[in-house]
């Protein structure tokens, strides 16, 4: 597998009146061709900032790349000029935004909006671009594309608008597609349609997708690999099965336990206590330590490095250190681990008897 995108030691700060907000504090990941990487975390964890920094969409006046690099096909996106970036943005890397109500221009027909990147990046004349636009509308499942092409965003429903936003993002066959909570504003039934559409398109075009969401159900549905972010860092990264069935970081445990499961009855829902850290004064040690019942003394003192769980699975928690005491994860997590080969709670399923 080839890496199409590599983010190395990325650090980024915002300069505000209150001081320096360290929004990203050392993020490392790579994206392989044709895979879907989901980034999960609560608001303020830095997941949107990470992707906006890849797209260079952050205000230059206040955002500062402190350290690290973003390598796309060998070029460091943090270093290239804005003019060069414009050739990549919307062509090689494109983005689907969260809110389909505000990410379209209400004064332009949707046809013109989809055509915009095509005319800009591909040397096509207007009629060819028009043809391509109608193809795209068909691809994303807007019926009667020839006529609807001339309509304005307000004439479409929320789900259809999100399809149009996807069509714009796909217009130039991007190598990397960044989807920032693309279904959060939509109903479950529409969400299911959009997710199916994205998977379908990925199969056809072999695009790599970075999918940002806080909905773990959606992650389980779309992702090949998952990165869990907290307090401006990735705290755990692994394949989707490793994260859901063999999670190692207490924050991942908390996230997975706070989702009500469909078959558990009348238990008190697990709630992660407290609130996310203030990144104006990020904590010295493990950012999650203050909210974690598994926190040890060292968590307050030193940031945990990544410990290797498997070739694809890494977690930043001192609990994985060889000198750390062995702790029992929450009951719900143990249930999950029982189904995962290689976890210490794995129970062999012998057919029939449970």
């Amino acid at each position, binding site marked *: 597998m080839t890496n199409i995108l590599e983010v190395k030691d990325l650090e980024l700060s915002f300069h505000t009146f209150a001081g320096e907000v360290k929004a990203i504090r050392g993020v490392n990941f790579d994206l392989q061709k044709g895979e879907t990487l989901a980034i999960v975390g609560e608001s303020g964890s830095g997941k949107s900032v990470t992707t906006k920094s890849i797209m260079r969409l952050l205000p230059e006046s206040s955002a500062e790349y402190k350290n690290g690099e973003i390598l796309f096909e060998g070029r460091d996106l943090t270093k290239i000029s804005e003019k060069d970036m414009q050739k990549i943005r919307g062509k090689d890397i494109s983005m689907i935004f969260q809110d389909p109500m505000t990410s379209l221009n209400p004064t332009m027909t949707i046809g013109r909006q989809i055509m915009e990147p095509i005319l800009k990046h591909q040397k096509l004349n207007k009629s060819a671009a028009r043809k391509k636009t109608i193809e795209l509308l068909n691809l994303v499942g807007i019926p009667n594309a020839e006529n609807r092409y001339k309509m304005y965003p307000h004439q479409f429903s929320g789900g259809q608008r999100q399809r149009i936003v996807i069509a714009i993002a796909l217009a130039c066959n991007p190598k990397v597609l960044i989807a920032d909570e693309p279904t959060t504003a939509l109903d479950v*039934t529409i969400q299911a349609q959009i997710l199916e559409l994205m998977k379908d398109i990925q199969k056809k075009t072999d695009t790599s997708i970075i999918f940002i969401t806080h*909905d773990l*159900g959606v*992650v389980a549905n779309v992702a090949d690999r998952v990165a869990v972010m907290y307090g401006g860092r990735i705290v755990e990264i692994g394949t989707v*099965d490793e994260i859901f069935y063999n999670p190692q970081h207490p924050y991942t445990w908390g996230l997975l336990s706070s989702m*009500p499961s469909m078959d558990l009855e009348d238990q008190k*829902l697990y*709630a*992660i206590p407290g609130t996310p850290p203030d990144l104006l004064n990020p904590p010295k040690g493990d950012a999650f330590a203050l909210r974690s019942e598994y926190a040890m003394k060292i968590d307050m003192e030193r940031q945990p490095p990544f410990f290797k769980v498997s070739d694809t699975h890494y977690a930043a928690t001192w609990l994985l250190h060889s000198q750390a005491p062995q702790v029992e994860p929450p009951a719900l997590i143990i249930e999950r681990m029982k189904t995962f080969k290689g976890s210490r709670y794995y129970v062999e399923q012998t057919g029939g008897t449970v």
Partner: protein
Amino acid sequence: MSDNLIEVRNLKQYFNAGKSTEVRAIDDISFTIKRGETFGLVGESGCGKSTTGRTMIRLYDATAGQVLYNGVDVHAPKTKKENHELNRKMQMIFQDPYASLNPRMKVLDIIAEGLDIHGLVKGKTDRKQRVIDLLEIVGLNREHAERYPHEFSGGQRQRIGIARALAVEPEFIIADEPISALDVSIQAQVVNLLKELQEEKGLTYLFIAHDLSMVKYISDRIGVMYFGKLVEVAPADELYRNPMHAYTKSLLSAIPLPDPIYERSRVRHPYNPKDHKYGPDEKVEFREVAPEHFVLCSEKELAEMQATYV
């Protein structure tokens, strides 16, 4: 006193009634909410679930039908005093904790507004003490009283909204998507808080949401709405175990669960209202298929459902 705190009878809410732009937001729905229970109302956006909540609390006047609260018609003409009393007993928690708190008022005054209107406190110290008590009930502390809404996070604001609703000691609370705008980890905190308060104070909830997994968790019974109509009402577990209306099945099959192995094999059932193939003289009514389990169906469908019921 009967068991039912709320009885909704053939409620209709048409916007622009009689004009060509008529919208039947609620089209003849009936249900009851028992004292002390949580009734969940789910459906897609635009199906009329929020309108139902708002009509019940008389933010809208109903086009037809009745909402009985303790046997009293909410929409019938009443004296000022009766209205006042009813307003105290029914309270609402709104969806958007950013838009539902006045940014120019201190938390103290936001929460105390209801207390002032209903004359529930005497004097300044009593008023403040009451607000502090309420803040502590919802997990905030006394220092927060002197602050403004913008100084709080989404989860904290929703707690303020809950404290405001609780201030006047209501019996019935309509929670209109109270957690949709919150983060997952914070959602669980707010849901747990609502549950604790219900146990302590014996509150009755109407919980409106589109997040079906949370609804199942908090509700005793659930109603599913589709285009202004209630299509199915059943106890929460029963509804998830045994969905009968095609729309409910479709809705349940669309929820992604945090379980990758299950997700790989999940099959979605799209819903098309035409699939019912109702004949012109078939009567589509709300019928009881199993005890406590009601479905909007024709007589023929009823027979089929009862035949396959397990």
